[in-house]
């Protein structure tokens, strides 16, 4: 009696009791579907948040002015402003070879009008390199140039939301808008990044730094310096070079540092860790329903063993060993569980096609594999007690059973 034949006879006896087998499978099916779907939603949430963090820029490191202690910082420490010269120094290929670009930014709250339409938003003043650093591509029109920046021309690139609010259906390229009383010519519209955990990333205007400083904010401290590491592998080196350059320029060391660094990679790591725990918890809750399904298998297999006591007796009388009987019932419970898992998988695939609360669930291959391995495990584990009972029946008593 080889494994394949035992498998076939397992399927046969499952088919012989369709309704009962179906109801038992339902437990496993729901459990498997729950595990895969909940993990897929966790993964979907993670993808969405990761996507919006990555939308901030590629290999982005941001420098802010001020001490880590904030207001409570030692009053004796003179906090130096972040300056355009700091940004220039960070672009030095000798001192900071792993930094591919650095751009200073200055932000202004503006309310803009174009024709009869108006819209309030934030305007970022920076250098042309900022487009690359912040992952901002134009979908229509073009970027401003270094000469626009040097001459402080009143030109701007606007996000999709701003374009929709100020120009409605019309093409904004070449049109004029007035922000806090200053007229700007629109050069381009940015590719949409969509809404995310960080608000609407399309609600922004990018303009030359000199223009923003001259007309809107005045020459004060910069808000940030946006720095791009040459690659994701060299983020750590880039950050080291960045601190070395700025520490030397500001004449500070680790303890007295008057600027702060925000590293996109480490944020991603932290967020992904938190989301990983969240997803694992979801999976664990779902796994409980799988456990309940498993108990259903034990229950139904016990009924089946009792019902088939006489059959087991006959089989033993004509020479079935304990091992053969054990295997027969184990295979039956495992096949039952596997078929349930298969339908659970189908259900999960159907359910995860639906987007819920803006999250597109993403099926994690490991959870599919895991669900199958676990359901085989459940079949074996929860089938082992009934199977053992069947195998250890004494033949004469089993034969006498009515």
């Amino acid at each position, binding site marked *: *009696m080889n494994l394949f034949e035992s498998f076939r006879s397992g399927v046969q006896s499952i088919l012989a009791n369709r309704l009962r087998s179906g109801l038992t499978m339902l437990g496993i099916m729901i459990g498997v579907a729950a595990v895969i779907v909940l993990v897929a939603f966790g993964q979907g949430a993670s993808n969405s948040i990761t996507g919006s963090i990555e939308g901030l820029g590629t290999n982005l490191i941001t420098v802010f002015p001020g001490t880590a202690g904030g207001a409570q910082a030692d009053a004796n420490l003179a906090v130096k402003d972040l300056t355009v010269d700091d940004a220039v120094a960070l672009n030095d290929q000798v001192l900071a070879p792993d930094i591919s670009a650095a751009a200073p930014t200055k932000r202004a709250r503006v309310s803009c009008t174009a024709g009869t339409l108006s819209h309030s938003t934030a305007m970022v003043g920076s250098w042309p390199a900022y487009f690359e650093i912040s992952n901002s591509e134009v979908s229509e029109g073009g970027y401003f140039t270094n000469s626009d920046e040097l001459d402080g021309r009143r030109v701007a690139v606007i996000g999709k939301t701003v374009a929709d609010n100020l120009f409605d259906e019309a093409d904004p390229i070449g049109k004029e808008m007035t922000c806090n009383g200053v007229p700007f010519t629109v050069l381009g519209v940015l590719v949409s990044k969509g809404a995310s955990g960080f608000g609407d990333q399309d609600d922004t205007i990018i303009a030359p730094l000199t223009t923003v400083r001259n007309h809107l904010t005045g020459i004060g401290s910069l808000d940030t310096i946006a720095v791009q590491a040459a690659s994701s592998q060299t983020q750590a080196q880039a950050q080291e070079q960045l601190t070395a350059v700025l520490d030397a320029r500001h004449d500070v060391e680790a303890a007295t540092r008057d600027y702060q660094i925000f590293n996109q990679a480490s944020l991603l790591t932290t967020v992904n860790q938190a989301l990983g725990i969240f997803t694992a918890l979801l999976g664990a809750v779902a796994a409980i329903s799988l456990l309940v399904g498993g108990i259903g298998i034990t229950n139904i297999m016990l009924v089946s063993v009792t019902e088939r006591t006489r059959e087991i007796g006959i*089989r033993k009388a*004509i*020479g079935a060993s*304990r091992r*053969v009987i054990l295997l027969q019932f184990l295979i039956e419970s495992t096949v039952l569980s596997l078929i349930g898992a298969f339908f659970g998988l189908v259900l999960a695939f159907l359910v995860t096609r639906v987007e819920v609360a803006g999250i597109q669930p993403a099926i994690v291959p490991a959870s599919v594999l895991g669900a199958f391995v676990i359901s085989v495990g459940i079949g074996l584990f929860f089938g082992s007690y009934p199977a053992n009972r069947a195998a250890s029946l004494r*033949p004469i008593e089993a*034969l006498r059973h009515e």
Partner: protein
Amino acid sequence: MTPVLDLVDVTKVYGDGDAVVRALDGVSLTVNTGDYLAIMGASGSGKSTLMNIIGALDIATAGQYHLDGIDINTLDEDALSIVRNRKIGFIFQSFNLIPRTTALANVELPLAYRGVKRGERRDRAKAALTAVGLSDRMHHRPNELSGGQQQRVAVARALVAQPSLLLADEPTGNLDSRATADVLKLLDQMHDEGRTIVMITHENDVAQHADRVIVLKDGRIDEDRLNR
């Protein structure tokens, strides 16, 4: 030549204390190859108990039992299942076919447990079913067969593995006279081919088919006679 069955002073006791029942009380019996033995006796005289011990389904409380020279009392459950598979073919009063399983699959089963390959198994099972006159009923399930046909399937299943001993417990107990005649004819045929048969029966005319009849009474052999 070693006898097929060799029982010496076999005793089976059920229960303990006041409720103790000596179902078998010192049975000694030898059956040689080719013998056809009928066991008779009143209800409760110990026939089925003796059959269970002979069939290696149960172990005697005391005494010696050798089947084909093998000391059955010393074997464990797994070894007993091998002995049942290789040495014994069972025919029961209530047929005891596996439900929802075709006649062919039922007859194949002892060979499957022995590890015979599928193709050979199939051929041998078909031959056995043909021998009992059921070549046109191979793919029927037990609930699609008459009692007599079911018992013939059971005979085919008992024969297919070529056991040393055919053991039948009231094989005609649930059959009408036609079917009884069919089954007895099959057993006679097996006997003519040299098989060893032990059969329990209540009926004298069934016992007439055997060469030798023993009668049990209160767990002892009361009478041991040769027919004809």
